[in-house]
């Protein structure tokens, strides 16, 4: 009686068909994921882990007159070392907090200055004039036997 019933037959077939579709769909989704995930991860480069960049030797104390500054390479970025008119050494990441131009030291202003949009920072890196929204990122300056070593704040 049941075998002769077309609706039952049809339902059974639909059940099998639905089951197959779930199996195939899951398989295809898994395959897609196993391709897409590595691709996605590959696109983003690994974080720089080179230890050599932890501490950068910028020069000796005698290389810098008071009221002067110098940009130097710090990992992938530029950093700025300044010697204040008082003779102190300070270092900051050289990237302006406004739109990422490189800043420079202006002895005539005794300020750190960004040429792109006339942003200004004082000798502690505080944004004092113009568009920069935040102070510059400070770095740690150590002086060992006359050598100036700059590292990131921990």
């Amino acid at each position, binding site marked *: 009686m049941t075998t002769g019933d077309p609706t039952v037959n049809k339902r059974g077939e639909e059940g099998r068909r639905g089951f197959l579709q779930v199996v195939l769909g899951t398989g295809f989704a898994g395959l897609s994921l196993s391709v897409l995930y*590595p691709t996605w991860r*590959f696109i*983003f480069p*690994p974080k720089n882990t080179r230890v050599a960049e932890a501490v950068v030797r910028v020069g000796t104390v005698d290389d810098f007159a008071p009221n002067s500054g110098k940009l130097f390479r710090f990992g992938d970025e530029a950093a700025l070392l300044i010697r204040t008119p008082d003779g102190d050494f300070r270092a900051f990441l050289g990237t302006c907090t406004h739109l990422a131009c490189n800043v420079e030291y202006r002895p005539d202003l005794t300020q750190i200055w960004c040429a792109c949009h006339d942003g200004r920072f004082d000798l502690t890196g505080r944004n004092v004039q113009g568009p920069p929204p935040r102070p510059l990122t400070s770095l740690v300056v150590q002086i060992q036997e006359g050598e100036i070593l700059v590292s990131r704040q921990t």
Partner: protein
Amino acid sequence: MQIIKLGFEWLDERFHLGDLIEFAKHKTVPMHHSIWYYFGGITLFLFLIQLATGILLLMYYRPTEAAAYESVQYIISEVPFGWLVRSIHSWSANLLIAAAAIHMFSVFFLKAYRKPRELTWVTGLILLALFMGFGFTGYLLPWNRLSFFATKVGTEMLNILPIVGDTMMQMIRGGEHVTGATLTRMFGFHVALLPAMVAILISVHLLFVQRQGMSAPLNIRPPKEMPFFPNFVLRDLMVWIGVLVILSTLSLYFPWELGLEADPIAPAPSGIEPEWFFLWVFQLLRIMPSEVLGVDGRLIIFAVIGVLGIGWTLVPWIDRKAAEGRPNKLLQRAGLFLLVAVSILTIWAKFFHHA
């Protein structure tokens, strides 16, 4: 679902997609149960994989003498899944050449080249040559010792050709010697020139297949037909998944080696060899005496390969019998001889010549 339907209707109104679907519904291909019919599709699939992985590798690879090796090392050691992407690219390249070669020989032995498909045969041969060009140029890109010297030898061979040889060699090397200039040039060929040429030729090749339909072997006629969609497409897809499994297994368990960085002033290491699909030429050059009756042996090999290449290209026109639907035993045997000879030379060079 509604948005897909609306989008389809919008496009259909402008491009008459309905016609294309109607066409796809009625397209049929010859019924067959032979695996040889899948190798063209496999080649295409592997080429798509080469495109995708090649574009990924381009994100990190640097084509200069100073940075190339280091950048590949960076890819395989630090970039997430970089080892996998690079391994797949190398393995897929080799499988692609193999699939294309199998495709070519099956077309030859099943006589699918016969009228009216002469130009499909010719475009296919050009495509195989371009793929070998991909292999040759890509081989140098990691700038390792093996590939550096293999490229020296490979390009030096051009120099043997009279009159034009030296100019051609310098064109490819970008100077007298294999240097960073060669690397940059090979890179340009590999990622710009060859892909453009292959894209055009694949389009033409597929257009021909589409216009004329698939060939059926001589002894089957009239062939039964089956719908292209979904029957044949699904079979193709299943084969592609199988190929993907093989490719992943090879890439995972036998990751492609990088070797040592090229050193232009170091002596050539032992075991220098080109990629396997050039080995038969390599072996011929090794066993040929340097002079035969006063003629440079290498030049003789070039001449023989040149004549064979031209003959092979003209096979659809040489084989008049096939066009009339009759078998051609002589040509069949010549083809078989060529296949066996090339195979023996390759195996000889790969496994039995080191002693």
